[in-house]
Structure formats: structure tokens, C-alpha cells
């Protein structure tokens, strides 16, 4: 019994927990659609690679469709925004450790984002509803 207690406490020796560290510090990660990848830094380096590729993709879309107008402009903008949102989520989820931290931190970040998004959409929509508009 005491051995079990000590083993459990040993895992909590470092404030973040040794078991968590072993999982985080592995250089080998399972990447969706690609398989097992081994790189110095493990998941952090894989995420950086993804961020770099997505940034290149963003710039290509922005430059290749620079003169897009009307619906094409809307599709281009939506694509760019989606990619940047995905990049932001990668950083927040993996680098800021929201993946493994207390779930309340996710809500602390999400609530102001949701409130602000609703507020901005409302403010952008008010002149349209009033007969004015930006378009």
C-alpha cells in the first residue's frame, strides 16, 4: 500500500508531473495522415513544420488570387481566415498546452473570443440593417 502511495507521489515529484513530461518529451509522434514521425523536439517540431507549410499556403493563395473580386474574393478571404484560425489553434493547443492543462483555461480564452466575435459582427451589421452599409 505504501509503495503504491509513494509511486503515485513520485509521479508528482515535479510540479507538472513526471508522467506528463515523459509523454511530452518524446521525439516520436503519431501524425494524422502521415504516420509516425521522429524529429528533435517531437510534437513541437512537427507543429512548427505544419505552421510553416500553412503560412506558405496562405501567401500563395493571397498572391495567386490577388485580383479576385465578388464571390471569388469572399472565397479567398474565407480560405485565408480558416488557415490562420487553424494555425492559431495549433499554437494554442500544442504550444500553450491547452491540450493537457485544466479545461477551464480553454473557456477563459474562448468566452472573450466568442463575445467579441458576436459584438464585431453585430457592429458591422448595424449600418446594413439601418439602410447604410459597407458593401
Amino acid at each position, binding site marked *: 500500500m505504501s509503495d503504491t502511495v509513494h509511486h503515485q*507521489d513520485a509521479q*508528482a*515529484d*515535479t*510540479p*507538472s508531473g513526471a508522467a506528463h*513530461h515523459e509523454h*511530452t*518529451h518524446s521525439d516520436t509522434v503519431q501524425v494524422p495522415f502521415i504516420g509516425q514521425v521522429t524529429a528533435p*523536439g517531437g510534437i*513541437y*517540431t512537427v*507543429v*512548427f513544420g505544419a*505552421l*510553416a507549410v500553412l*503560412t506558405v499556403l*496562405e*501567401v500563395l*493563395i*493571397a*498572391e495567386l488570387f*490577388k485580383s479576385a473580386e465578388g464571390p471569388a474574393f469572399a472565397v*479567398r*478571404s474565407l480560405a*485565408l*481566415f480558416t*488557415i*490562420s484560425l487553424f*494555425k*492559431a489553434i495549433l*499554437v*494554442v493547443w*500544442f*504550444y*500553450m*498546452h491547452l491540450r493537457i*492543462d*485544466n479545461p*477551464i*483555461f480553454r473557456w*477563459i*480564452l474562448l*468566452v*472573450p*473570443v466568442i463575445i*467579441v*466575435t458576436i459584438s*464585431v459582427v453585430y*457592429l*458591422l451589421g448595424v449600418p446594413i440593417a439601418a439602410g447604410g452599409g*459597407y*458593401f
Partner: protein
Amino acid sequence: MAEITADSLGHSSDTQVKAHNENLKLAVWLYLASEVVIFSIMIAGYIIFRFNEPQFVKNLHDTLGIGLVTANTFVLLASSWAMVMALRAIQMGNRQHFMLFMGLVVGMGTVFMIGQYIEYSELSHLAITLDSTTEEFGAIGMRFYAPTFFHGVHVFVGVLLGLQVMWLGRKGFYDKNPIGVELFGLYWHFVDVVWIMLFTLIYLV
């Protein structure tokens, strides 16, 4: 009355440390939540200008180009990678690698600020200032400078904080409890996330 043994004290203090760490992280997340609101207001101001005056924004994009700001974006993304690697190193007890990666964070943050300075110099040559109105760019100044300069100030403060983290880390301050590094990392990654959004909204869309 039960004797308070060294063991029970050790276990209790470890629990207290963990609880204290969680409280510190909560405080930083609450601070970051307030930053979300501030940056969102500035971003909203730019979005409204973007829809109102698309030609001015197009002129700015055509004049500035995409090269410098893309390079700057890669620098900041790389600094975010270096930051998380620094935390990983100190958690694994490798102080040497921690100092190396933190040096990269501070260095790349400085490079980013130099890139921003170069871009601001270009804009000043185009007579784009905070309150200027030109035929080619309208009143884009404030809408552009507000979010980007506010972000730049965050990078500057981050560089100073990073130097402090390096200084304390060099003396072994984070060897037993690297929470200070993790907290600084949260701030630095948030600065990176804001730039990810600004880069897309201001320079690409």
C-alpha cells in the same frame, strides 16, 4: 496528535506548489483574455476600414509587397517553437539547452522588431502617419499602426521579460519548478497568435 513527518511535509508542499502553479497559470490566462478584447477592438477598426476603403488597402499591399512581412512572420513562428523547446529543455533538466533556446527567442524577437522598424520606415517615406490622409492611401495610418504597433510593444516587452527569464534560469531559479518559464511561454505564444491573425487580416486579405 499525529506527528508531522518530513514525508508528509514533502507531500503537502508538493501539492501546494502544484496548486500555486495552477493559480499562476489561471492569472496569466485571465490576463490573456483581456488582451484578446483589446486586440479585437483594434482589429475590428481595421476590418471596418478594409470594407469601407478597399482601394486604399490594395494600394498599400501593392506598394509594400509581401516579402518582408512574410519573413518576419516566419521569424516569429520560429521564436514560438524555440520558446516551447526552451520549456521542454528546462523540464528535462537541461539548463544549457534552455539557455540556448531562450537566446533564440530573445534574438528572434529582436529581429522581428527590426523588421517592423524597416517596414515603418517605408511607410513614413510614403507619408503614412498616424493622422495623415493621402490620395493614395487615405486615412489608413491609424488603422494600420494601432494594432501593429500595439503588437510590437508586446514583442518589445516580451524580449525584456525573456532576458529576465534567461538571467534567472542561468542562476538555476527554474531548475526545481519551471513554472516561470511556462508563464512567460504563454505570453510569448499569445503574441505569436495575435501576429498570425494580424498577418492574415492586414497583409493578405
